[in-house]
């Protein structure tokens, strides 16, 4: 049984309200390989979990339960029926503070809490709240490099840092690194990009953009099978640039309004009748040799 079949059966049998596969998201049937040599020989079906925007240290009315929300999410991930192969955090692990000592205290607390995740490895990325005030210095002390690559079952993952520069730039040095990383790759190779801010101009007046993100997209466009997962906007959102699908994740602290729907990007108010409404994390299941991804959204706490 494939994992997707298992999920469907679980949802049907247990009434679990989490089956929300996203039709049309990163599904490019024309690119799906069937024995064309596109899929690496070692490719196997797998899935990972994306968590984002935990903002550890936040205190405010948008989440009066902030002190325990992350711990509850960790427990929910640990209780997944089938453990993921790995976990990624796409930035804003902590809520920003102007105090460098407090920033480190929050990073240390966050790291201690997520150490309870049973699945390893966990790949961490920075958000602007973690890294923009010190160009990633504190983040690196706790989690290492802010941009890196790794490979898993034939899929090449590229973590792009668009937050250590306070101007929301990737920067020439990192773009050169990206160019070199891509230089020798097959144009059909499955590639997943992880980042914090949207690489495209989603809502520039809300600072929902990467100033030089178009350059990264241009470098990726020659590759046929690229999918981007990011955070920052505290909600599920799906967008396509050329043939590249971009999927943002929900937050684990507070939700934000729909892109451009109001003057200011103020957090949506906490709903005491529906705690954690609009919050959650997702499973990303790689199918068809890593050129198609099935997304399943989960709440912070499952019924």
């Amino acid at each position, binding site marked *: 049984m494939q994992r997707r079949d298992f999920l469907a059966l679980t949802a049907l049998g247990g009434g679990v309200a989490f089956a929300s596969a996203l039709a049309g998201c990163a599904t490019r049937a024309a690119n799906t390989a069937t024995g064309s040599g596109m899929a690496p020989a070692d490719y196997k079906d797998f899935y990972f979990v994306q968590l984002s925007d935990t903002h550890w240290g936040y205190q405010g009315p948008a989440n009066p339960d902030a002190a325990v929300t992350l711990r509850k999410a960790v427990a929910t991930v640990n209780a997944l029926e089938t453990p993921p192969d790995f976990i990624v955090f796409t930035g804003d692990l902590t809520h920003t503070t102007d105090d460098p000592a407090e920033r480190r205290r929050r990073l240390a607390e966050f790291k201690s809490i997520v150490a309870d995740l049973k699945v390893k490895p966990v790949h961490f990325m920075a958000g602007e709240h973690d890294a923009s005030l010190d160009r990633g210095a504190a983040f690196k002390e706790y989690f290492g490099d802010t941009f890196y690559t790794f490979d898993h079952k034939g899929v090449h993952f590229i973590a792009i840092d668009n937050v250590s520069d*306070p*101007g929301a730039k990737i920067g020439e040095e990192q773009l050169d690194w990206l160019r070199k990383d891509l230089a020798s790759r097959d144009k059909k190779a499955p590639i997943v990009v992880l980042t914090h801010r949207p690489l495209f*101009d989603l809502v*520039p007046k809300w600072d929902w953009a990467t100033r030089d993100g178009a350059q990264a997209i241009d470098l990726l466009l020659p590759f046929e099978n690229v999918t981007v997962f990011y955070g920052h906007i505290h909600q599920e959102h799906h967008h396509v640039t050329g043939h590249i699908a971009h999927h943002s994740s929900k937050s684990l602290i507070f939700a934000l309004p729909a892109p451009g729907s109001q003057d200011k990007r103020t957090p949506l108010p906490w709903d005491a009748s529906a705690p954690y409404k609009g919050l959650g994390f997702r499973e990303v299941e790689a199918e068809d040799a890593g050129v198609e991804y099935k997304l399943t959204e989960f709440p912070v706490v499952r019924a």
Partner: protein
Amino acid sequence: MMVAGRRIVLRGALAAAGAMLVRAGLAQVAGEPRVIKITAHRFAYEPNEIPLKAGEHVVVEINSLDFVHGMNIPDLGKRFDLVPGRITRLELQPEAPGVIDFVCDNFCGEGHEEMHGRFVVSA
């Protein structure tokens, strides 16, 4: 509300203190433009709502006090780094009523996400 940005005449550019403004194209404008001063500091522009009249020619002078704040005006396709010690100048002549938003796009601290403003253009 309709955004005025598409109809605005953007006449100026970033200029260091004491430098001449770009004057090209201003021959038909009678009189001196009104000067509007904005101060940028953590975590606000003051004032953050600037009333303008459609057709009015103004020069906006922005002075940052404490950080290289950003001023991104997406509707105009312009952005500036506001370097402390330098005056950033922007000439505007909006042609139609509307709102032109601007935002700090250089992450400047705990209140960064509250740092924004707008030009409100009336008929």
